[in-house]
């Protein structure tokens, strides 16, 4: 049973009827992929490419036009399969009058957490999302970053096997995004399968084991992150203390073996790394 993929999608297609004339709009076009258990899977693509629709189909929120899928071994998004799945939708909105703790407790009860375990499960989820202190405040007073974090807490309060995060860092500053990245890492360490839709490619690159890229409803690439990013036709050598004479000698030596130096650059750190190094502490 555990060898089965967390999510398997086969020839999935979804058409929407739009406008009075019911013009057909194909949101997902014959998509096939599989997400192994215990991995972090990045589902990438521009806005409107069909990522969220694919996830909604898998979660049983939208029916597919054709194709099939399995969710945690079930041939449909049954209540049993959904009870083992956590979901954070894009730009989540929660009842503003509830406190964060009340919201997470409410979601725990809906997710089937037994009454005697609700408080401890709520505490754990709030701690994971770093929302223990803010849990006493009303959701209406939360910043965007806090909304995302409380959304993450409600998604994991029932300790699901699979966590689906749709744009968890949308509208969140780099510090908050890094915090969410750490939470994803913590969930991976607990053996969860995580599906991550995000536009933060740097973060996806850091946390994901596999990625799939969608464009205009079609899957254009899928594979292990190391495999899809590696350029097999080029190599990079980092050298310290390279003098002009040493560089000329190295280029000559390489040329003798039929290789050609195409560029010599100083290594760069990413902007995200620089930002995170200079700006510390959460603004939440």
């Amino acid at each position, binding site marked *: 049973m555990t060898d089965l993929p967390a999510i398997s999608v086969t020839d999935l297609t979804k058409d929407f009827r739009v406008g009075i004339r019911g013009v057909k709009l194909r949101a997902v076009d014959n998509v096939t992929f599989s997400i192994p258990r215990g991995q972090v899977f990045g589902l990438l693509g521009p806005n409107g490419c069909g990522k969220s629709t694919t996830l*909604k189909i898998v*979660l*049983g*929120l*939208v*029916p597919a036009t054709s194709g099939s899928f399995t969710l945690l071994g079930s041939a449909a998004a049954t*209540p*049993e399969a*959904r*009870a083992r*799945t956590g*979901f*954070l*939708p*894009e*730009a*989540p*909105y*929660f*009842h503003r*009058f*509830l406190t964060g703790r009340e919201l997470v407790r*409410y*979601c725990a*009860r*809906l*997710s*089937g957490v037994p009454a005697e375990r609700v408080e401890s499960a709520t505490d754990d989820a709030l701690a994971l999302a770093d929302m223990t202190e803010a849990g006493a405040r009303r959701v209406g007073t939360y910043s965007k970053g806090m909304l995302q974090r409380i*959304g993450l807490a*409600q998604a994991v309060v029932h300790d699901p096997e699979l966590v*689906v995060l749709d744009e968890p860092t949308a509208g969140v500053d780099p510090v908050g995004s890094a915090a969410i990245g750490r939470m994803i890492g913590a969930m991976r360490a607990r053996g969860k399968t995580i599906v991550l839709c995000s536009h933060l490619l740097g973060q996806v690159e850091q946390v994901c084991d596999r990625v799939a890229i969608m464009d205009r409803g079609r899957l254009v690439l899928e594979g292990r992150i190391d495999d899809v990013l590696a350029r097999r036709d080029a190599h990079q050598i980092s050298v310290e203390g390279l003098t002009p004479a040493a560089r000329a000698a190295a280029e000559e030596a390489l040329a003798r073996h039929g290789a050609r130096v195409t560029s010599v650059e100083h290594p760069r750190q990413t902007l995200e790394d620089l930002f995170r190094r200079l700006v510390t502490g959460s603004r939440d």
Partner: protein
Amino acid sequence: MLTRILWIARITFLEALRQRFLAFLLVLAAGFTLGSLPLRSIDFGHGELKFLADLGFGALLLFGSVLAVVLPAQLLYAEIDNRTALTLLAKPVGRGEFLLGKFLGTWAVLGVFTGVLTLLVGLILVGREPMVAARALSLQLTPPEVDLWGLCQHALLQWLRLGIVAALALLVGALAQTFLYTVVVGSMAVLAGQLVWIAQDALARPDGSPLGRAGLWVTTRLFPNLQGYNIGEPLVLDPSSVPEGTVLSLVVAAIAYLAVILLLACAAFRRREI
């Protein structure tokens, strides 16, 4: 399953209590009911208590109906538009459970609305009863009496009636795509329910073409007779005029209507794309 439905109902109830529209209609209905006091001298030839009861029950009927159409539609579309429905329905919550939770939360609010207005009408009637009775005795007339049990029965019937209206609004909401459409079509369904007695009367007469009679028969089966629940004035001021078993049969009919309408609403909502 019941736990999940009751939790959704609880949150819906708390959310509905915070709706300004509810406060607005409650104040309006209470003002309308209290406004009957200074106007009681122009009772159009009816007894004063009858006039007061008619205005109070009228306010409950009118504003309660508006609330019963708008509130469930507003709460349902708020969940869908704000995407909280996505969060909830991705959990092991059935669509039927979600809709029943929304209904029960709304119905509980309608119960509060009915209770407050009934209490207000009861206070007005009981407060005016001694003066009206003394005046009647001075004129050697039979003094009117306010039957509080009848008032409670009327409150129950109105609550059931508003429940049917709310369930109809949810049924339309489960099928429709916009809040406005739901409110308009829901209001028309309520109006049809208020007027269906005309079709029942016409069907009871032996004349008419077979096609017309078939149309009337379908109409009477399709829409609940909501007008039948408006028996507040006889229940409260002249209980002996209400045939025995009337209230019980109305309660049974309401429960049957609620069950059928909610089943249809759940079936329609299962097919909806969130």
